[in-house]
C-alpha cells in the first residue's frame, strides 16, 4: 500500500504548489482577498479551504486507485483482507480531504458522521453470518437513499446544466428504486409475513410500464424547467423519487425467495449506478469511478447467478416459475423413498474413503455450519477425505454458503466449485446433502420439459451412496418432486439439519 503513496505523494505536493494552479481553471486560494466584503462574512462561520481543488482531485485519484487495488485483492482469500483495508483507506482519504475543501460548516457533517458511523459499526459487529443477505440488502438501500438526498441537495446550490439535470433525475430514479426495492428484499429475507409474494395490484406489469413513462415525463419537466428560478424542478425531482419508490416496490414484490441472490446482486449494481449518477450531478470523478466499479460488480454477479439457474435476467425479474402440466406426481415419484437412521448412515461413513458434503439453504436456516465442521473433522480423523461442493445459487446471496463454512473454520481449499468437482463425483463413496433440493435434482439433466431443465446441478446422484438430510419431502422453489430422493442409492434422513448432523456425529463415535 505504501508503494502507491510514495508515488503519488509528490504529485499531491506538486498540486498544492502555485505552479500547478496556474493551469487550473479555478485557482481556489485567490478569491479570498478579492471580494473581501462578501467572503469575510461567510468565512467567519465556515472553514477556509485547507487544500486546493487540485490537491483534492489528486487525492480522489489515489482513492480510486485504492478502490481498484482493493477489489483486485479480493481475487484471492490470501490477499482479500489487505484489499478490503486498501479500499477502506481510499474512502477515508477521500472523505478527510473533502472536509478540507473550504466553505463548509462542520457541525452538521460531524453529527452525521458520528450517528452513521455508530450505527454502521454496531450493525457490522452484531450481525450473524446467516443474516448477511439481509444486511447487504439493507445497506444497498441506504446507498441508494444517500444518492437521492445528495442529488436533491445539489439541486439547491449547484449551477444548472442540461446534463446535470438529467443526472439529477437519474440519481433520484435509480436511488429511489434501490431504496424501496432493497427494503422489500430485506423484508422478504427476514421472512416478514405481511410482505406479499406475487403481484399485489391488478395489471401490475402494466402499472410498472406506466410508472416508467411517468418518470420519463417528469424528467423532461425537470430538465426543461431547471434554472428558471421556479419551484417546478424541485417538485419534479421529488415526484420522480416518489414514482421510482413505488416502482421499486412493485418490481421486487413478485420475485420469489430462491431468486433473491439475483435481486440482491442487481440492487447492489443499482446502488453503484446511483452513486455514479450523483457523481455526474456534482462533477466528481471519484463518485463516478467508484460507482461504476460497484455497478459492474453487481452486474457480473447477476450474470453468474442467472447462468447458474439457466435463466435469463428478464425471466428472473418478470417470469414465473412453478410446476408445469406434465410435472410427475410427487406420490408416484416418492414411492421408493428409503428413510434411514443416524446409526445406518454412520455404518456407511465407517467404510467411506471419500465423502462430499453439499450444503443448501436449509443448512443456513438450522445454523448447522458448526455441527457440519465437527462432522467433517471427525470423518477426517478417521481417515475419510471430506470435500464441500457449493452450488453458485445455494443460500440467499452469492457465496453465502462459503462464508458460513468459513465462519465454522472450514479450510477454504476444501470448498469446491460445482464445475470443478462434478467430473470427480463418481469417485466419492458418500454424498451428504444438507437442506438442498433443486440444485441436486437430476431432472435438470434428464427431463427437457421440466422447469429447471438445463440448469447446472451438482451431480451427487453419481456418487456411490447419497444421504439427504431434509425436514420433509416438500418441494424446493421450483415446485417439482426430486427423483434423487427415491433413487436406489439414496437414503433419506428426515429432520432438522443441525439436529440430524449432531445425531450422526454421536452415532459415528459410538459405532
Amino acid at each position, binding site marked *: 500500500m505504501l508503494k502507491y503513496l510514495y508515488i503519488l505523494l509528490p504529485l499531491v505536493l506538486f498540486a498544492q504548489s502555485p505552479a500547478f494552479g496556474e493551469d487550473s481553471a479555478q485557482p481556489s486560494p485567490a478569491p479570498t482577498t478579492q471580494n473581501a466584503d462578501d467572503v469575510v462574512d461567510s468565512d467567519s462561520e465556515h472553514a477556509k479551504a485547507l487544500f486546493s481543488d487540485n490537491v483534492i482531485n489528486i487525492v480522489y485519484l489515489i482513492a480510486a486507485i485504492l478502490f481498484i487495488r482493493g477489489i*483486485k485483492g479480493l481475487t484471492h482469500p490470501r490477499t482479500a483482507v489487505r484489499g*478490503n483495508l486498501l479500499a477502506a483507506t481510499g474512502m477515508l482519504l477521500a*472523505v478527510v480531504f473533502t472536509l478540507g475543501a473550504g466553505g463548509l460548516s462542520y457541525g452538521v457533517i460531524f453529527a452525521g458522521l458520528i450517528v452513521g458511523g455508530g450505527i454502521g459499526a454496531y450493525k457490522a459487529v452484531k450481525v450473524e453470518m446467516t443474516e448477511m443477505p439481509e444486511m447487504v440488502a439493507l*445497506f444497498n438501500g441506504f*446507498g441508494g437513499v444517500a444518492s437521492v438526498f445528495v442529488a436533491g441537495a445539489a439541486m439547491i446550490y449547484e449551477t444548472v446544466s442540461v446534463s446535470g439535470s438529467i443526472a439529477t433525475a437519474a440519481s433520484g430514479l435509480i436511488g429511489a428504486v434501490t431504496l424501496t426495492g432493497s427494503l422489500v428484499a430485506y423484508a422478504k429475507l427476514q421472512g416478514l409475513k405481511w410482505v406479499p409474494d406475487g403481484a399485489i395490484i391488478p395489471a401490475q406489469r402494466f402499472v410498472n410500464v406506466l410508472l416508467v413513462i411517468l418518470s420519463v415525463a417528469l424528467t423532461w419537466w425537470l430538465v426543461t424547467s431547471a434554472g428558471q428560478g421556479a419551484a417546478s424542478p424541485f417538485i419534479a425531482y421529488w415526484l420522480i423519487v416518489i414514482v421510482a419508490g413505488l416502482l421499486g416496490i412493485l418490481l421486487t414484490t413478485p420475485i420469489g425467495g430462491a431468486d433473491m441472490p439475483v435481486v440482491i446482486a442487481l440492487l447492489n449494481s443499482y446502488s453503484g449506478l446511483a452513486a455514479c449518477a450523483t457523481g455526474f450531478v456534482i462533477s466528481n470523478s471519484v463518485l463516478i469511478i467508484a460507482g461504476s466499479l460497484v455497478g459492474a460488480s453487481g452486474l457480473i454477479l447477476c450474470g453468474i447467478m442467472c447462468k447458474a439457474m439457466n435463466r435469463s435476467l428478464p425471466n428472473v425479474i418478470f417470469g414465473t416459475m412453478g410446476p408445469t402440466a406434465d410435472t410427475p406426481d410427487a406420490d408416484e415419484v416418492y414411492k421408493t423413498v428409503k428413510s434411514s437412521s443416524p446409526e445406518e448412515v454412520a455404518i456407511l461413513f465407517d467404510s467411506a474413503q471419500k465423502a462430499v458434503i453439499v450444503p443448501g439453504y436449509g443448512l443456513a436456516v438450522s445454523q448447522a455450519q458448526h455441527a457440519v465442521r465437527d462432522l467433517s473433522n471427525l470423518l477426517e480423523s478417521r481417515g475419510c477425505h471430506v470435500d464441500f461442493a457449493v452450488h453458485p445459487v445455494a443460500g440467499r446471496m452469492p457465496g453465502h454458503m462459503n462464508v458460513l463454512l468459513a465462519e465454522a473454520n472450514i479450510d477454504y481449499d476444501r470448498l469446491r466449485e460445482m464445475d470443478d468437482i462434478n467430473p470427480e463425483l463418481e469417485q466419492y463413496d458418500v454424498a451428504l446433502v444438507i437442506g438442498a433440493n433443486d440444485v441436486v435434482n437430476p431432472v435438470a439433466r434428464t427431463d427437457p420439459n421440466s422447469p429447471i431443465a438445463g440448469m447446472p446441478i451438482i451431480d451427487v446422484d453419481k456418487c456411490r451412496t447419497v444421504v439427504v438430510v431434509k425436514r420433509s419431502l416438500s418441494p424446493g422453489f421450483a415446485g417439482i418432486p426430486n427423483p434423487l430422493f427415491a433413487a436406489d442409492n439414496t437414503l433419506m434422513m428426515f429432520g432438522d439439519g443441525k439436529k440430524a448432523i449432531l445425531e450422526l456425529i454421536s452415532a459415528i463415535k459410538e459405532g
Partner: protein
Amino acid sequence: MTLITGITIFVLAIFIGFEIITKVPPTLHTPLMSGSNAISGITLVGAVLAAGHPGWQSQVLGFLAVVFATINAVGGFMVTHRMLSMFKRK
C-alpha cells in the same frame, strides 16, 4: 469537469471493473458484495459537501445523506473485514 470527461471516466471505470471482478472466485462473492457495497458509500463525499453547505434545506438533506452513506461505508468495510478474517487455510 466537462460531461465528456465524465463519460470517459465512467466507461473506462466500467471496463476496469469487468476486468478485475470476473477474476473474483465464487468463494469470495459475499465479501465482494459487501465490500463493493461499502465502496458505493463513496456518495459520502457528496453528502459531506451538501451537509456543510450554507442553507438549511441542503443541510437537512446533507445530514440524512451523511448518516446513510456513513452507515453504508463504515458498516460495509467492517463487516467485510470480519468475514474475510474467517477465510483461513489450515
